[in-house]
């Protein structure tokens, strides 16, 4: 089930999809997108790659086990949720930097939260799919 056409396609689709996923993540607060869809697109990028090159090869690109993305993502999301508590505010209160940053716009805890979501979604989808495909071969 190797196809050189698919393999080559996946070589350049992977960066495109990843780029696009980050794009979706960053603009989520203003336009359709956000952590979920971003994460899903990113994971689809890797899934596609694994279809073309085999799961083992994709895992080499990812370098880390997708499973380990889950706690990282959860930690980022939950810390951005927890941060306000340290400032005496209710959990999850939005915190924002005063000035907007070019390209990204306003930086705030919501963005970190979305980043956490993004990572978790990638971790989850990849864990699920890679575990299955490793199990299937």
């Amino acid at each position, binding site marked *: *089930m190797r196809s050189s056409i*698919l393999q080559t396609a996946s070589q350049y689709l992977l960066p*495109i*999809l990843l780029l*696009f996923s980050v794009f979706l993540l960053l603009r989520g607060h203003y*336009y*359709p*997108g956000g952590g979920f*869809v971003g994460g899903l*697109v990113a994971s*689809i990028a890797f*899934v*596609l790659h694994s*279809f073309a090159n085999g799961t083992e090869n994709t895992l080499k690109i990812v370098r880390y086990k997708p499973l380990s993305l889950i706690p990282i993502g959860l930690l980022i999301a939950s810390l951005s949720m927890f941060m306000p508590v340290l400032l005496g505010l209710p959990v999850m209160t939005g915190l924002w930097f005063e000035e907007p940053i070019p390209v990204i716009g306003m930086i705030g805890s919501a963005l970190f939260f979305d980043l956490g979501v993004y990572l978790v979604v990638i971790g989850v989808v990849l864990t699920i799919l890679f575990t299955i495909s490793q199990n*299937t071969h």
Partner: protein
Amino acid sequence: MSLALYFDYVIFPILTIAVLLVFIRLVKGPNVVDRVIALDLIITIGIGFITVYSIRTKEAIFLDVAVILALIAFLGTIAFSFYLEKTNNDD
């Protein structure tokens, strides 16, 4: 005749008829591969639908959906091919 009306009475009907025809193929089969390509075509037409709809409503935001569709729709087809090559029987 405004563009909106033209879209409503010409473009959309053509597209719906197209979907209908493809859907007939999807139901008829006869093989799973036929259904898979029918599905693929339905999604492609869906992208067209969304594009046309965004022109019709003048809301460019819907194009974002089309981008996603265009990027990942073929994954399903790839998955089906993957499956079919693994199992030579066509359940």
